[in-house]
């Protein structure tokens, strides 16, 4: 997740990473991890504190002054079998939201032009 500042809204974090940040815990799917009280206040998350506690790498590019927050390390790519939220633009110029397909079986296929 690209960040211009280390203070970022809990909503943005959830949208991009699937982690729902509350006052004393971070949850995704059926997994919850306790976090320190300083990590999140007034729905603003301190990304460096969160990174430390969830073992997320935080990479900085000094020249462009941007951070990149990676996924939590340790374990597997999926920490839960609950499908993460996924909202992406579709090819027709609209917005795709995986939630709208629930109730049917979904085959998600990743491909590329390269």
């Amino acid at each position, binding site marked *: *997740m*690209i960040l211009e500042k280390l203070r970022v809204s809990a909503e943005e974090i959830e949208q*991009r990473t*699937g982690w729902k940040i509350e006052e004393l815990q971070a949850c995704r799917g059926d997994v919850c991890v306790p976090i320190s009280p300083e990590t999140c206040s007034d729905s603003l998350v301190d990304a460096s504190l969160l990174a430390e506690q969830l*073992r*997320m*790498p*935080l*990479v900085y*590019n000094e*020249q*462009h002054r*941007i951070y*990149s*927050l*990676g*996924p*939590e*390390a*340790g*374990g*597997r*790519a*999926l*920490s*839960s*079998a*609950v*499908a*993460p939220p*996924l909202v*992406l*633009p*579709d*090819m*027709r110029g609209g917005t*795709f939201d*995986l*939630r709208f*397909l*629930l*109730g*049917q*079986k*979904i*085959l*998600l*296929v*990743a*491909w*590329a*032009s*390269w």
Partner: protein
Amino acid sequence: MRTELKPKGLEVVTVALDTGGPEACRQYVLDADAQHPSVIDEAHVVDELFGIVNVPNGVWIDEEGMIVRPAEPAWTRTIDYSNVPIPEDTPPERVELIELARGLRIEGDAYVSAIRDWVAKGSASRFALTPDEVIARSHPRSQEIATAAAQFELGQHLHRAGFTEDAVFHFREAHRLHPSNWTYKRQAWSFIDPKQGPTPVYDGNWTDDVKSIGSENYYPAFQP
């Protein structure tokens, strides 16, 4: 396949992992006359969320939103290149490519049969995995692999913002930290050379990197 299985309750979503944006892949979608949701993922968010390291890859999600098979090679039919002939006048670099292609494992028939079984039987299908199996089969995520994801995202962000030279450092870091991630490599190589051949910018290229692991390992075998 979609025409057959959509009435039985399966929807297919295709996600294009293309930092080049919709322009890079729209023509393919138009040519395929796609009727299913067709989505563009310029930031490769899906790689990170689902642990995808090569394409094409498929993930199965059931009616309740549970993943029942994590990322694995997803083909619509088996392709066997093992007997592709190499005519005498074939240039050497082409010979090398054909030899690599001969070893590729493209097991679409087994994959499609598994999908049909799941669509018919749901969670009773032997191909639908339990949550613990899904997690255990998903890609490992060490500190290096997680950092590679952050580096790759920084690279693609700079690339999209027009700082293509500044992006290279981060792409190289992603390649160094997670060498078995083909999406990181192929995406970055293709910016320099669409054929993903050797360039002065990156240490690896498709032919040499596939040769080093053996092309039979490029797409892992389908695991029932």
